[in-house]
């Protein structure tokens, strides 16, 4: 179970570039929740994921994973709980290292690393099996450098790496946005499969509203650092793209009206 309570984050506080990115986020994820996250540019979606992962410290509030408060922990210390896939396919893998080496680094996520061999024989068997499941033929190229793979292949590999050791929380930040539609679909299908197989608690940011509606059991919409809409279960199932657009409209109009009032 993951809980965010009263999480605030302002970038560049006290300067002309001050930006309130998270404005009192409260969110409780139940075990196995697959939540899609939507919202306009700059709404704070990435920031919310980054705060959970510990990329930057939060200004106020608490982040709990299974009752453990991780808000003051370093990014590398939180890794034991969290698997991540980023928007940029280059971000999630080490280009100059072999496919199996990348997997072996992920296989030890959050574990202490010592002087035993980096990739053992029995691991290779496991990786072969897992790679085969991707259906991209990577199982026959395990000692190729990851830099030789296409963006989609790298993203599929990153997804596999993020879930190789079951995370308590999986964070996906527009992880198919940089891919062509066909590859995006492959990676999205894989996401669905991996998440449902292990019932992973997942936060998935996307700009594709159809995907946001189709996938997951719950949807949240963000606007100006706040969660303005949170639906799940049957209510989400019935939701249409037009409903989401209307919500967007309402949200931005609201702020537009407020701006006008301030100016008047």
């Amino acid at each position: 179970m993951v809980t965010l309570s009263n999480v605030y984050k302002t970038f560049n506080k006290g300067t002309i570039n001050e930006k309130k990115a998270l404005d009192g986020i409260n969110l409780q994820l139940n075990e196995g929740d697959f939540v899609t996250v939507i919202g306009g540019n700059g709404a704070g979606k990435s920031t919310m994921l980054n705060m959970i992962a510990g990329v930057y410290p939060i200004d106020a509030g608490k982040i709990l994973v299974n009752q453990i408060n991780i808000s003051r922990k370093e990014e590398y210390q939180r890794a034991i709980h969290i698997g991540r896939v980023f928007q940029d396919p280059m971000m999630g893998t080490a280009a100059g290292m072999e496919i199996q080496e990348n997997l072996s680094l992920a296989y030890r996520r959050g574990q202490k690393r010592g002087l035993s061999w980096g990739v053992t024989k029995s691991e290779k068997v496991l990786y072969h099996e897992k790679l085969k499941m991707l259906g991209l033929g990577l199982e026959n190229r395990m000692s190729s450098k990851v830099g030789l793979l296409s963006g989609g292949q790298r993203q599929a590999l990153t997804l596999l790496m993020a879930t190789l050791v079951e995370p308590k929380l999986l964070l996906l930040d527009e992880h198919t946005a940089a891919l062509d539609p066909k590859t995006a679909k492959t990676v999205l299908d894989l996401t669905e499969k991996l998440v449902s197989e292990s019932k992973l608690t997942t936060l998935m940011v996307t700009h594709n509203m159809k995907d946001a509606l189709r996938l997951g059991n719950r949807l949240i919409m963000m606007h100006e650092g706040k969660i303005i809409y949170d639906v799940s279960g049957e209510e989400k199932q019935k939701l249409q793209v037009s409903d989401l657009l209307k919500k967007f409209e309402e949200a931005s109009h609201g702020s537009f009206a407020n701006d006008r009032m301030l100016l008047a």
Partner: protein
Amino acid sequence: MNGLLVSLEGAISQGVLWGIMVLGVYITYKLLNIADLTVDGSFALGGCVCATLIVSGQMNPILALFIATLAGLLAGAITGFLHTIFEIPAILAGILTQIALWSINLRIMGKSNVPLLKVDTIFSKVVNFLGMKQMHVTLILGVLIVLAIIAILYWFFGTEIGSVLRATGNNENMIRALGVNTKKSKMVALMLSNGLVALSGGIVAQSQKYADIGMGTGAIVIGLAAIVIGDVIFRKVRNFAGILTSAVVGSVVYFVIRALVLRLGMNANDMKLFSAVFVALALCIPVLIRKYKQRRDYSEGGEKNGNTI
């Protein structure tokens, strides 16, 4: 002709012994993407510590090398501390340690030069034991030491910790997301690197029979030059042991070229200018090639070169 052969053998031996330093530079510069300028200071540190221990402390030359290596580890730790904990840019952190080491090295030796005549070195011990010529012993022993170090590095960078160091140089964000404290891995890399550099300084001091306060000046440039040369010669090599070997071979080639141009009458004092220009060119050429290709492939019409699919 005989004189040439002798000076070539000397150059090869020198290249091999300095090759240990090049391996150290390789770890930071190539694997971790850090330009660490501690090297000039830690090389001299190794020589100074080693010479002082052997002469003033009458220490066994092997033990002295061991302690010189520890001193190098410490020097690397100081740079690592400044860089990772206090977020001082790596280049500046290295320069600070290097400058500080100049004074420290003078303090250690008490003067600017310590000769190693009439004392045992690892080389004189073997000479006495086998009755071979010092020149040959230097080369053979040097090669054996380098091979052992390459074997150890090959093993180390295949272990879990070694993989983490390589990954830190490759994609720091990724390996942090996988639970690694990258500050620690950079620290380990800087220590390991400078430990090797100091070991190299100690061995070089023993082979040339003196340690000198200025013996490390320009070491980093020699290291980079050797790596570039090795890269060019072993362009096709992918195996990690092969790549490490190429760095040492690069060092040997560097010292052979150096011996040749000196023989051709170049002033020894101009050698640093020569090395600097060489490394600068080596760094410039890839950029020039890239810019040239960009310009060549550009066409206003967009289709002239048949670049469209």
